[in-house]
């Protein structure tokens, strides 16, 4: 006791001494309030005395208090998403601070390859779209959010299949090998999959459009790069958000086939006996039978928060979508968490990210469309006795039975985890590391019932498939940032990195046929009695990519900027003679508005001229092992009563194989005018691809196989893009923004030959109709674009019901040969455009978005195949004048290559935000309704003028084929709540 007392006394006297010293010494205590520009207090703001460990964070009222601060100390007030303020104390005891948003457009940090840059100082062509500008409604992935927002970024929905991914193209096609579109980078991890990020988790998306900004991604960036940044937790306060919607989809357009009455009428008119077919008194619309109104729902829940040294966010998203086809639906579950923690005096930052995406889906059997085209409307779905009706006629069978009895079920898991570590070696130099592991597995479970059209020939067919993709990634980076000069007018950044990536793929399948019972489905393969050697299959391969990359950036007063990047990529997939590729870029920008002579021009807020050149690559068309001389299995051979496995050299090895190389020159102007009311970008580019991969026909002998992959052709894309955003009305209650994107791209194949491989013209695509095999639709030819339709020029149908074509001498003839074929349109549009409008009136918001194309053609295969009477009345046909006029076998010609220019009301949305000022626990509440794909204005006669661009490896795009799955029209109602 005694001892304690004396200790207390000692401490007390020490404290008195210290207080005395404080009161009469140099140090003071400082307090104040930190708020934003609207006067709202900011919670959790870090207030630090520079050069000391003294610091604190603001409380719930935005207040802070610091003791023992030197009178001449400097306070640094920093907060996520806000500009950091630096304030000398100057002996004041009360300092109130107003932090301004760091999202002030021009000083906003925009995510670029391996880093961030101030928007004002970006020298390449980068378009950034952040969450408030995303499309609304039923959105599957990032592509849906961006649709029409970025000039030159063409996003097409290939069909109504809910398991289909969007096709993304940036600035035209730049390969003959199934253009995979832009390279996806998610939170700095290269090579991502859009499906793994729920749209509600995305904070912003940067699109690197030109080679100078994309080249740092080297041999995979020729199609451009899309950088996705997910939302992070912030220290404002813990936040819980819910976003949910419910939607109903119906088929937007279906083919106009003969109804039962029209079919009977046709038979009467043409004097045909219907008795064999019309025995059931049925009146069936087969397209109605196989389609439905599908419902969808989406629930997205996230929670986030953080403190001064950490932040976190976790989210869950569930999406269920039903396609308009009865055998098509998908459930998707996305989980994501992110955690970031600082340590060692904030010098170390460690982040952990985990993500899992699980999808359960049913792939539709698209052959059911063919059956629905062919089946007679006088056939019933079911017979009176409750039995299925069916027929074995060519291309016929009961599609409803197929849908109900068969299944093609897929399960897919995609999960990854990453750790990123950042350490401030010095004030100016950071070292970063990224470690990443990803695994994707997929299981397929297909069963075709022994009585259905699809399974009847096999006596039941069961298939199980398993695939697995693995990816390991390690990256190291050094990042150096400095400012020098008297006012810091010189800004310099240098970055160097190393990346090591390994991918592995494995596959196995087993199938069986001829099942005694259909009850087991594909769950007991061994019960089948028709196993064939080819029913078992497996594969496995790997590839490795190793890269070194660097970037330097220099800016002088945001007036003159220059950036240079260099990447060296080595890939195991490249041939022995070309293991490493070099991808340089350089770009410069001139901030005209920063010049002294612009000081008097007040109506221009900012104007920047950018010029860039870079070299990028593409290797997506190159599969592993393509360059090697290999033995592969080649079926079986007969040997003394047994069938043994044969081995054959599997390909013509080409050790010269390498990446495709695309050099792009880009020049553009960014401008902000009239107090930022009008802003926009105009750009022109010239993109030249060489060493294009293509599988060439080679002579046998000397080659073993008749084709061989080689880097030969050249292609050129030139284009101009315009993006404008205009705040037409800016008042307190009413706001109207209207923005337009326009893009024109001209694609041309400039060469298909070199010294070894010579060809000037490759016929591609298949114009299959019954009796019309062996006809091609497109030509890949020097001087013409990819997607060039090539065939006879149609004039009219003559009195005898025969086609009249124009031959090469200009005469009108009934029959033409290959010499008479000509260029009958291109699948590539002259212009793609998007126009979006956003209105806010008090608590209401309304938006609509129109998009479309001009000048592209689509081959209407449905009309070509079923717009003729050849198989009437035994098979159905379209209710089209052609079934009366045409008397010959359908033949591919310009008649069916139709203008597919169109205007689509893609999205319209009306929302109401409830006032939450009086509700302390609720931050935001918004209710909205959305309509998607409401109408299409077009002269195109088929189902939809927008079709799959990747058909036939992308070489025969612009074809609506018989199995085209029509798109849906969707209405949804949703709510967003933030607590």
């Amino acid at each position, binding site marked *: 006791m005694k001892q304690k007392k004396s200790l207390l006394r000692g401490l007390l006297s020490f404290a008195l001494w210290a207080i005395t010293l404080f009161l009469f010494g140099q140090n003071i205590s400082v307090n104040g309030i930190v708020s934003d520009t609207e006067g709202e207090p900011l919670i959790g703001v870090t207030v630090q005395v520079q050069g000391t460990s003294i610091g604190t964070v603001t409380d719930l009222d935005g207040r802070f208090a610091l003791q023992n601060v030197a009178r001449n100390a400097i306070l640094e007030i920093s907060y996520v998403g806000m500009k950091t303020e630096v304030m000398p104390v100057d002996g004041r005891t009360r300092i109130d601070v107003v932090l301004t948003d760091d999202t002030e457009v021009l000083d906003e940090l925009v995510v670029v390859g391996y880093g961030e840059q101030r928007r004002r100082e970006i020298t390449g062509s980068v378009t950034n779209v952040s969450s408030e500008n995303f499309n609304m409604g039923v959105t599957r992935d990032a592509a849906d959010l961006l649709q029409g927002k970025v000039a030159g970024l063409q996003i097409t929905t290939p069909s109504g299949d809910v398991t289909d991914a969007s096709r993304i193209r940036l600035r035209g096609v730049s390969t003959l090998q199934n253009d995979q579109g832009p390279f996806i980078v998610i939170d700095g991890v290269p090579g991502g999959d859009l499906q793994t990020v729920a749209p509600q988790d995305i904070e912003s998306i940067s699109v690197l459009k030109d080679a100078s900004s994309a080249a740092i991604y080297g041999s995979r960036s020729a199609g451009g790069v899309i950088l996705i940044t997910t939302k992070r937790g912030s220290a404002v306060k813990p936040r819980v958000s819910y976003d949910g919607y419910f939607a109903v989809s119906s088929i937007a357009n279906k083919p106009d086939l003969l109804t039962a009455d029209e079919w009977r009428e046709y038979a009467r008119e043409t004097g045909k006996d219907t008795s064999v077919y019309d025995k059931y008194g049925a009146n069936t619309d087969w397209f109605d039978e196989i389609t439905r109104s599908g419902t969808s729902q989406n629930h997205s829940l996230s929670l986030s928060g953080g403190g001064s040294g950490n932040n976190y966010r976790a989210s869950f998203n569930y999406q269920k979508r039903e396609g308009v086809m009865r055998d098509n639906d998908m459930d998707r579950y996305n989980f994501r968490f992110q955690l970031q923690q600082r340590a060692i005096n904030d010098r170390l930052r460690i982040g952990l990210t985990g993500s899992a995406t699980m999808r359960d889906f049913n792939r539709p059997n698209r052959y059911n469309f063919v059956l629905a085209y062919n089946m007679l409307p006088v056939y019933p779905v079911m017979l009176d006795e409750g039995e299925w009706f069916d027929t074995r006629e060519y291309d016929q069978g009961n599609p409803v039975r197929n849908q109900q009895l068969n299944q093609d079920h897929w399960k897919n898991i995609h999960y990854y985890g990453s750790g990123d570590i950042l350490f401030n070696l010095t004030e100016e130099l950071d070292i970063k590391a990224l470690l990443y592991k990803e695994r994707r597995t997929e299981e397929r479970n297909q069963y075709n019932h022994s009585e259905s059209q699809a399974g009847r020939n096999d006596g039941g067919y069961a298939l199980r498939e398993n695939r697995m993709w693995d990816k390991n990634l390690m990256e190291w980076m050094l990042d150096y940032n400095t400012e020098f000069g008297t006012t810091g007018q010189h800004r310099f950044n240098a970055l160097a990195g*190393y990346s090591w990536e390994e991918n592995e793929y494995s596959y196995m399948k087993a199938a069986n046929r001829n099942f005694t019972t259909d009850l087991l489905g594909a769950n007991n393969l061994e019960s089948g009695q028709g196993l064939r050697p080819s029913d078992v299959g*497996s594969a496995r391969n*790997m590839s490795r990519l*190793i890269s070194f990359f660097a970037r330097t950036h220099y800016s002088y007063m945001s007036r003159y900027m220059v950036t240079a990047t260099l990447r060296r990529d080595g890939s195991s997939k490249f041939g022995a003679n070309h293991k490493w590729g070099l991808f340089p870029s350089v770009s410069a920008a001139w901030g005209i508005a920063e010049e002294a002579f612009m000081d008097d021009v007040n109506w221009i807020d900012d104007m920047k001229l950018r010029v860039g050149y870079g070299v990028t690559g593409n290797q997506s068309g190159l599969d592993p092992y393509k360059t090697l001389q290999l033995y592969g299995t*080649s*079926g*079986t051979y007969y040997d003394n009563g047994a069938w043994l496995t044969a081995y054959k050299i599997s390909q013509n090895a080409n050790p010269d194989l390498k990446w495709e190389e695309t050099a792009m020159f880009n020049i553009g102007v960014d401008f902000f005018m009239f107090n930022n009311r009008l802003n926009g970008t105009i750009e022109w580019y010239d993109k030249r691809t060489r060493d294009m991969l293509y599988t060439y026909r080679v002579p046998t*002998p000397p080659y073993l196989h008749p084709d061989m992959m080689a880097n030969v052709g050249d292609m050129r894309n030139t284009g101009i893009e315009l993006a404008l955003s205009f705040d037409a009305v800016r008042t307190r209650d009413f706001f109207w923004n209207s923005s337009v994107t326009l893009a024109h791209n001209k694609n041309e194949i400039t060469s298909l030959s070199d010294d070894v491989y010579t060809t000037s013209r490759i016929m591609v695509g298949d114009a299959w109709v019954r009796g019309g*095999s062996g006809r091609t639709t497109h030509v890949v030819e020097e001087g013409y674009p990819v997607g060039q339709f090539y065939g006879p020029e149609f004039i009219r149908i003559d009195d005898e019901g025969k086609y009249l074509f124009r031959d090469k001498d200009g005469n009108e003839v009934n*029959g033409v040969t290959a010499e008479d074929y000509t260029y009958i349109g291109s699948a590539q549009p002259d212009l793609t455009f998007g126009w979006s409008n956003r209105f806010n009136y008090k608590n209401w918001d309304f938006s609509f978005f129109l998009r479309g194309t001009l000048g592209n053609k689509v081959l209407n295969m449905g009309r070509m195949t079923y717009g003729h009477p050849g198989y009437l009345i035994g098979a159905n046909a379209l209710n089209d004048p052609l079934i009366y006029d045409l008397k010959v076998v359908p033949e591919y010609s310009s008649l069916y290559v139709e203008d597919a220019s169109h205007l689509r009301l893609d999205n319209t949305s009306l929302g109401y935000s409830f006032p939450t000022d009086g509700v302390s626990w609720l931050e935001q509440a918004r209710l909205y309704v959305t309509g998607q794909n409401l109408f299409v204005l077009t002269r195109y006669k088929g189902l939809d003028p927008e079709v799959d661009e990747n058909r036939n490896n992308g070489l025969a795009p612009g074809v609506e084929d018989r199995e085209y799955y029509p798109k849906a029209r969707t209405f949804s109602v949703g709510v967003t709540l933030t607590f």
Partner: protein
Amino acid sequence: MKKIYKFTLIPFVLGLMAMMFACTNLDETVYDTIPADQFGKKPAEINAIIAPIYKTLKNVWPSDIFLLSEQSGDMAMTPTRVGGDWWDGGVHMEMKLHTWEPRNGLIRNSWDNCMSGITTCNQIYATIEVSEMDADLKEQTLAEIRGIRAYWYYILIDYFGNAPLVSDYESTELPGMSTRQQLYDFVVSELNEIKDQLRDDVSDESYGKFTRGAAYTLLARMYLNAGVWTGTPNWQGVVDACDEVMELDYIIEPVWKTSFEVNNQVSREIILPAAFGKADGGNHMHYRTLHYLDPIALGMNIGTWNGVSAQPDYVKQFDDADPRKEGSFLMGPMINPATGEVLVTGHGRDLNHTVDFNIIPGTEREGMWGEVNQEEGARVNKWVYEKGLSNSDQENDFAIFRLADVYLMKAEALLRLGQNNAEATSLINEIRERAFGSDDYNYESVTLDELYLERRLELAWENSNRQDMIRFGNFLKPGYLRPQTSPEHLLLFPIPETAWETNNNLVQNPGYPAF
């Protein structure tokens, strides 16, 4: 503390850098295929490497090579069906009307198959030549490869006449043309060189291999057509080669169908088969020929294509008493076993395979060619259809060479030489007696015309039609749907344009537009 921190950091960073820059290994680990230099050491591996030469024979029949032989002659045709099925740009019509041009896909595929067969043989020859294996086995193996290669050259000589002659796989030069005579000399000399190195047993083990019997049969075929191909007949050569074959243990199977059964590998009449299994790309004649609804009548579960049929006049030359008529052609109404009623086509007509075709008025295309109803035409019925077959190719092997053909070749040579009609007659009678099951239809003595007829009766659908017609001077004569005599250059098919596109050293055959 600080010191330790520094000391650990520096080596750490240095080590890291070293690791980074060492990590530049880009070797591929090959998993599901085998680097070429690691394979072909063990006997079983060598066997598996040789196998592809035999697999090339699957392209002989019922492929486009088959269609070229039987449709350009007077045996088969693929008519355009009502509505346009099998029009296919007129490729089949061109065969029938003798209006083909170098872009015809059937011609292109046939050429490509020959070239691929030859190059496969060359590649495997080069591999085996340097491999380590038993010397005798190696000699025999190399001889087999040369034999198959000689067979592919034989088809080139027959169809195209002139073609590149390449026997060295290592050569990377684009080859030029060799004449028909040069190719002929090459094949004959190859066969003479290898015939004694080949096995001569007739057994389960030798079935499917290129044997001494195959070499002599091919030699007989070469000599048989020597007059057409080189201008210098060699009938004695035919007799001698056939004698060599007949010395071997092959037999005329007592039951004609034995060579066409599903499991016809038991036939000792077959000298060289294209061996078909269900596993990979088997015999798909049933798909090609049967009507969509025929499988119901035949008790099969397959989706067929309603294609190739027989030309009416060819069917009509068969004696009704000849079991080979029904045994070669599927004719008459097709009955649904479930109802006992005739099946009805998608055009509301009875599924009755008539021998004759009736061009539907108003559907004429070129000349007399037009559309016919789905059910018309006699179908292939020679290879036995497997009841209960599910969605699969058939297993019946195709006899590229069989002993009956050897008998007929020898008979023909004897007749052409004008010697020993008695032996020729007895050879033909042996074939007829087997077919009819009695000697009631035997000849007393035979003429060349009767021999020609017998070949047609025995070898329908067996890739012999065009060659026989040319040898007997009938190929260019007017025929069914073709009222005019054809120009002489059609005795050879044109070199396909696509082949020239990849190899500009090729020269077009006379009579066709030059490249």
